């Protein structure tokens, strides 16, 4: 069955403040959607609410993955159902090695008693690290601790490659990456493109979209998707900024909490 991810009228609050004001979006397997939008308009909030971050409260709407109710699931269940979020600010966890973490994540998807063998795991991990041109020492480093911004992003992609998700959300995966790393990361994403997998890519820059060609581009303002189009929309935003969108829609302040 082809993957289908449905967001319908999603509203979410943080500490009582409404940030998402009704998001509608459908992502099918094989599609790449990009979300752009000025700072503070709710892009990361959307990603966090979909993943189930405990700080965000969903107040309205539905989210389904292949017909299953995502909002009913705990965070770990969402992940095992096939949702993956590469975070804008990944956590640092001292004392837990990257490889122990990755192995736990893989084994969480397997039945007790059929855990991945250590040798097979190491082979897989090292293979993917090589694709991402990561120094093998990162397997033994503590999870994200002291990683540079770009190293953290690369480590998020490593996890994506190893966990084989159905829906991938990348929140500013390009921030902090140098040009070479951007190409490597984009290449990692492109190798994952398939009919079974959908992508939601949050970015500020057209540059990433040169490497990962989106099928749809959405603009977010004031906690809503205010405009959608094809790749040409991203190009126009890159060239002209957001003013024309605001003008078109009569928006003065695009951040959340300001009503149109």
């Amino acid at each position, binding site marked *: 069955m082809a993957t289908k991810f449905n967001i319908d009228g999603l509203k979410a609050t943080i500490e009582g403040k409404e940030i998402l004001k009704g998001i509608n979006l459908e992502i099918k397997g094989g599609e790449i959607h990009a979300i752009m939008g000025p700072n503070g308009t709710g892009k990361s909030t959307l990603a966090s609410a979909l*993943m*189930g*971050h*405990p700080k965000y409260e969903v107040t309205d709407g539905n989210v389904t993955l292949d017909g299953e109710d995502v909002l009913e699931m*705990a*965070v*770990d269940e*969402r*992940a*095992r159902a096939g949702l*993956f*979020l590469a*975070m804008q600010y*990944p*956590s640092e*966890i*001292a*004392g*837990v090695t990257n490889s*122990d*973490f990755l192995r*736990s*994540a893989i084994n*969480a*998807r397997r039945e007790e008693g059929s855990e991945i063998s250590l040798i097979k795991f190491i082979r897989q991990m090292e293979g993917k690290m090589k694709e991402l041109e990561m120094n093998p020492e990162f397997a033994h480093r*503590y999870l994200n601790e002291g990683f540079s911004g770009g190293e953290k992003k690369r480590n998020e992609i490593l*996890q994506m490659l190893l*966990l084989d998700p159905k829906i991938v959300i990348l929140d500013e995966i390009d921030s902090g990456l140098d040009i070479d790393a951007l190409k490597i990361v984009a290449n990692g994403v492109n190798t994952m493109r398939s009919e079974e997998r959908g992508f939601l890519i949050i970015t500020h820059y057209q540059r990433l979209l040169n490497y990962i060609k989106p099928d749809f581009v959405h603009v977010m303002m004031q906690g809503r998707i205010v405009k959608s189009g094809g790749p040409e929309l991203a190009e126009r935003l890159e060239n002209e900024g957001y003013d024309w969108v605001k003008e078109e829609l009569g928006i003065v302040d695009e951040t959340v909490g300001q009503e149109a």
Partner: protein
Amino acid sequence: MTTQTILPIDRETLAALSQSNNEPAWLSTLRLEALELAGQLELPVVEKQKISRWNLDAYGSYKSSPAIQSLSELPESLQSLVNLEESSNILVQRNSSAVFQKLSAELAAKGVIFTDLNTAIQQHGELVQKYLFTAVKKDENRLAALHAALWNGGVFVYVPKNVDVELPLQAIMLSDDATATFAPHVLIIAESNSRLTYVDNYLSTDGVGLDQAVHNGVVEVFVKPGANVRFASVQHLNATNVTYRRAVVENDGRIEWIIGEMHNGNAVSETMSVLQGNGSSSDMKVICAGTNEQKLSITTKAVHFGKSSDSQMFTRAVMRDAASAIINGITKIEKGSTKANGEQTEKVLMLSPKARGDANPILLIDEDDVTAGHAASVGQVNPEQVYYLMSRGIPKSVAERLIIHGFLAPVISEIPLENVQEQLRSLMERKLGQ
């Protein structure tokens, strides 16, 4: 309020015991003096824990255990801790006396001594007498005095000048009889430019009454100029625990302490380095885990006398249920200890709302030309970290376990013997796995 201190043994019995163990006159005298002091001295001052209410009287009586021919005669839980290879060096104490010991011929030929303290007193009396109770003194408080009066079994390590002991010396201290006094004394002397690693385990079985017993132990380490001593200890006893560990470090000497206080009973422990010499250094890593109603007072302390001396302290405590821990870190820099540096961190992780933790970093500095720093924190498992791990599919309980393990990992990975590391991991698992 003064109450008549009830001593666990009377003078005559102690004198007779000393005699029956063939102890020299100086030692009998020391024991009897200490017993008298125990009757006069107060309990040590332990901040924020009322140890006067703890069960600190049930010492039992001296019971020598018969020697064993092979380690297979020991309880199974112990056997995984030791591997008897040609080259291994092992000593086992059971209750009040040593039951097994083995030192490789190679080390013996180099003049290394590794035996129980009773035997050392018979064979190297003068050497022992010169050091015994000079770092931890018998008149410090009632508990130290009681230890000096009652100590038994124990370990004596002597490493001659320039000798490098490559493999760790391992001691196992087993308490499986609640009616037996269990008070090992560990005495280590590392002569100039020598090097040694020592690892011990304190364990008790689930035998009747052991949770009512007392373990009162002392460790004294003498690090001579340029010598390097790594001292690791994992303790997991059901008894109430009192442990004083102290190292005196001379010029350019170095002591490393790696301590796991994984008891089931209440515990007071103080681990201290006296940095006597110029260029001397100390590194302390301590972890502890508390469960149920356990009360812990864990102190690390460095006292700087030497110029350019350096001390590092790193304590991690995980508290569950209604356990409470007072974690003290004391860096004392004396006048004249110029260019000294002392740094410490204490962190407490609380796993349940009733758990209590207190981290007290204390810097006492009497010299201007020094650097010192401290950091302390008390908190819960970080929900942001749990979320991150869960977002990769890891169930909450596993995520929390990974984080807790990670919190303690920097100390566990420093334990010199692989199987002792493993043991510490499984102890942690047993104590902290929900």
